[in-house]
């Protein structure tokens, strides 16, 4: 194995079980110099960082947490390929840093034993030694290092303890090659591996790129067949047949595949740990155990769970609002500043209504993302997240999902963007994608302005049976439609596109510990920044396009001229009037003229014309072209539909406050078809609300889906199926509604 030259940048790859604090170690080593990207073709995130040890620059790669290096899918193959230096886009690591939890040595050593076989220089970082101490465990670190044959460095990354020792251990380890120790496997297995390796290498012995011994082993052990199909072994006849024969021989020799691996490695781990770990005489029921007894208790556990979930939901739903309002105000101030300092024209409009509005539309999500990931960070770091998934699993399996989908879906009731991002914790690809695809159906907070506007305007404030408000029922009904649709879609997806064996639930419940503020803060900022970088660009781009569709074509000069003449006449009147009341009236009139001009511009714009074009399509929903155009215009964000309705119906875009809302409501009530029939009635209002309950009019969500799935296919599919669902839903609502009304 080639040693690194003196001048080169050295690389260290981090690997370890989940819940060992590996990400904290990575963060502590690389500081702020971190980048997140994607490995092409898979959804695994590529986390890299930089650090300096002495004079030399180092590059760090954080691999996904795993219990075993046994790849059974493309996502799992990434880690193995990186460690073996088989990826063209990633340098082979000079050192592998294995992060091991001191409380769980036996199970962690399973992975360590696999990594030892890779033959790379290695260092073990022993974490959570403080928790171990509090549980009465004593660990002889020197003896452990001796047994493993690699340096073992205790670290407490969140307190920055042990990092210097770790860095020097890494530097030293990278200077010399490692001799691979004895294999933990019994002789019959080792012989079979030799046999298979020789068969693969072929008669001439020299393969261009010989398959690493570790992968030859894995070919024998992997009964799922993934590796067989993935590893191209050219020209060697009948790999499948050889594996079959080899496994048969092993079974006969008393080393059946795959059990032989677990037996061998855990046996080795037990021997390695003899005399290394001293447990207290009786198992101390730590504080963590007492807490767990309550939190997973049949009754109290459920109560605690409901309270915590309500807290999270409430925080994202309500507590984010002041911050969002602040951001809106800030963006508005900036827009006003630009408007005041530039001449009127396309450039100013582009900057103000396109770019600034677009950027504002991105930043406004940060409070919700930060708050959700703040709470999720606390729950995950303290260990409760696993308990939540455990408590919810039974319910979620009815939908074909698992308990791990619960929190992402719950968060989506506030906003699907952090909800989709939270779906990352779901390891199974099919479950994760299903959760991501149904999350936007949970009626998010952006749908509320639409619901409240239309319910207040068109649903009579009557009481059903004298005590339940019709309006409240409608609201609850709309939320339920989303949930029912989500359940249906999830069920359908799991039967068709994502059909397959139920993924195992097998989930570790890590011991409780105090969440580290550093870890929580880092995770929160990381998610927010990732959102801005990856989704932000798409959102701003769409904003600019929508701006153009509404801005062009401009009203012809003579039309503008007529509006201007009206304004001049009013201003002339204002000069002659003394009465403050009359001046106020004139200001109102001027505002109305502006609203009418804006409305005409909107209706004649490209988007307005698109609305006209699709009118035949939306007619069966009870909509006319103006409602259709407003629906089209809401593609960037659902709540835009309210302002667009305001503009199209000549009330102006400022319909956020109470007065504006009531003006809009009366404008809607008075709106008519060309043949003087009223445009809005209860079925029409309901069909609009049902459409918005189910539609995908939120480019930000689609952008996040694109980011999380690392492909354009899934956001496109999302948009397509949700639009179709929304259309059919609105259609049925209107048609059935009209039938009932008749």
């Amino acid at each position, binding site marked *: 194995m080639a040693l690194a030259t003196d001048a080169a940048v050295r690389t260290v790859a981090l690997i370890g079980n989940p819940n060992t604090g590996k990400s904290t170690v990575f963060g502590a080593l690389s500081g702020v110099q971190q980048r997140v990207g994607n490995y092409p073709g898979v959804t695994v995130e590529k986390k890299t960082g930089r650090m300096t040890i002495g004079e030399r620059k180092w590059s760090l790669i954080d691999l996904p947490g795993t*219990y*075993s290096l*046994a790849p*059974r899918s493309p996502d799992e193959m990434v880690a193995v390929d990186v460690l073996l230096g088989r990826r063209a886009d990633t340098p082979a690591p000079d050192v592998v840093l294995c992060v091991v939890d001191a*409380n*769980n*040595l*036996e*199970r962690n050593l*399973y992975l360590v034993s696999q990594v030892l076989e890779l033959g790379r220089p290695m260092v073990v970082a022993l974490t959570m030694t403080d928790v171990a101490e509090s549980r009465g465990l004593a660990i002889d670190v020197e003896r452990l290092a001796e047994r493993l044959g690699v340096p073992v460095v205790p670290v407490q990354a969140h307190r920055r303890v042990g990092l210097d020792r770790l860095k020097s251990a890494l530097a030293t380890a990278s200077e010399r090659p490692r001799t691979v120790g004895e294999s933990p496997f019994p002789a019959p297995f080792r012989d079979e591996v030799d046999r298979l390796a020789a068969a693969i290498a072929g008669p001439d012995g020299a393969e261009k790129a010989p398959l690493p011994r570790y992968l030859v082993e894995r070919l024998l052990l992997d*009964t*799922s067949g993934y590796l067989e199909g993935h590893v191209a072994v050219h020209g060697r006849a009948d790999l499948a047949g050889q594996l079959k024969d080899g496994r048969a021989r092993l079974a006969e020799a008393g080393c059946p595949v*795959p*059990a032989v*691996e*677990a*037996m061998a490695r*855990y046996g080795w781990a037990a021997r390695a740990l003899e005399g290394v770990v001293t447990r207290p005489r009786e198992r101390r029921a730590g504080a963590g155990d007492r807490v*767990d*007894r309550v939190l*997973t208790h*049949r*009754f109290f*556990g*459920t109560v605690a769970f409901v309270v915590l979930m309500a807290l999270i939901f409430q925080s994202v739903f309500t507590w984010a609002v002041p911050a969002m309002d602040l951001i809106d105000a800030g963006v508005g101030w900036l827009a006003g500043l630009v408007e005041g300092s530039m001449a009127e024209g396309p450039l100013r409009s582009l900057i103000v209504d396109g770019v600034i509005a677009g950027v504002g539309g991105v930043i406004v999500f940060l409070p919700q993302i930060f708050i959700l990931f703040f709470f999720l960070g606390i729950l995950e770091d303290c260990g409760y997240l*696993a308990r939540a998934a*455990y*408590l919810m*699993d*039974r*319910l979620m*399996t009815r939908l074909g999902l698992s*308990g791990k989908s619960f929190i992402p879906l719950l968060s989506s009731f506030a906003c699907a963007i952090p909800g989709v991002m939270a779906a990352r914790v779901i390891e199974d690809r099919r479950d994760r994608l299903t959760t991501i695809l149904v999350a936007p159906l949970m009626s998010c907070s952006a749908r509320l302005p639409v619901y409240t506007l239309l319910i207040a305007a068109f649903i009579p404030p009557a009481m059903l049976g004298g005590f339940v408000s019709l309006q409240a029922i409608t609201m609850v009904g709309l939320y339920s439609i989303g949930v029912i649709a989500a359940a249906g879609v999830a069920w359908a997806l799991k039967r068709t596109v994502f059909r397959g*064996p139920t*993924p*195992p*639930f*097998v*989930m*570790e*419940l*890590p*011991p409780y510990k105090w969440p580290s503020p550093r870890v929580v803060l880092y995770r929160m900022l990381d998610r927010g920044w990732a959102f801005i970088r990856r989704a932000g660009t798409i959102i701003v781009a769409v904003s600019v396009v929508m701006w153009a569709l509404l801005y062009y074509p401009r009203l012809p000069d003579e039309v503008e001229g007529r509006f201007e003449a009206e304004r001049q006449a009013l201003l002339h009147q204002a000069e002659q009037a003394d009465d403050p009341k009359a001046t106020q009236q004139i200001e109102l009139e001027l505002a109305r003229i502006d609203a009418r001009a804006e409305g005409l511009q909107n209706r004649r714009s490209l988007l307005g014309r698109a609305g006209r074009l699709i009118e035949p399509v939306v007619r069966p929903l009870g909509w006319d072209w103006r409602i259709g155009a407003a629906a089209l215009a809401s593609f960037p964000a659902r709540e835009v539909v309210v302002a667009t309705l305001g503009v199209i119906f000549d009330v102006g875009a400022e319909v956020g406050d109470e007065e504006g809302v009531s003006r809009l409501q009366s404008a809607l009530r008075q709106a008519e078809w060309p043949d003087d029939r009223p445009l809005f009635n209860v079925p029409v209002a309901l069909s609009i609300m049902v459409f918005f309950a189910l539609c995908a009019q939120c480019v930000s969500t689609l952008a996040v889906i694109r980011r999380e799935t690392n492909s354009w296919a899934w956001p496109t599919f999302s948009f397509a199926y949700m639009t179709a669902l929304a259309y059919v839903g609105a259609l049925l609502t209107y048609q059935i509604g009209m039938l009932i009304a008749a």
Partner: protein
Amino acid sequence: MVTTLADLSIGQSARVTAVEAGGDLGVRLLEMGLIPGTDVSLVGKAPLGDPLVYEFRGYRLSLRRAEAAVVAVERA
């Protein structure tokens, strides 16, 4: 009669004799340390009786009832 992990009651322990499942589940259980000879005890059950929480090798693992049922055990 206790024959699989799913048959344990809270506080009871048993020793694994075999993992009777192939495929992904079987390998997962073995990787997590549920190999023949391991002592396992049942620590708790979720409100609806499923999933279950087991303790062995110094840590806790939750399994669905159907998953626990493939691990054959004997009372130690």
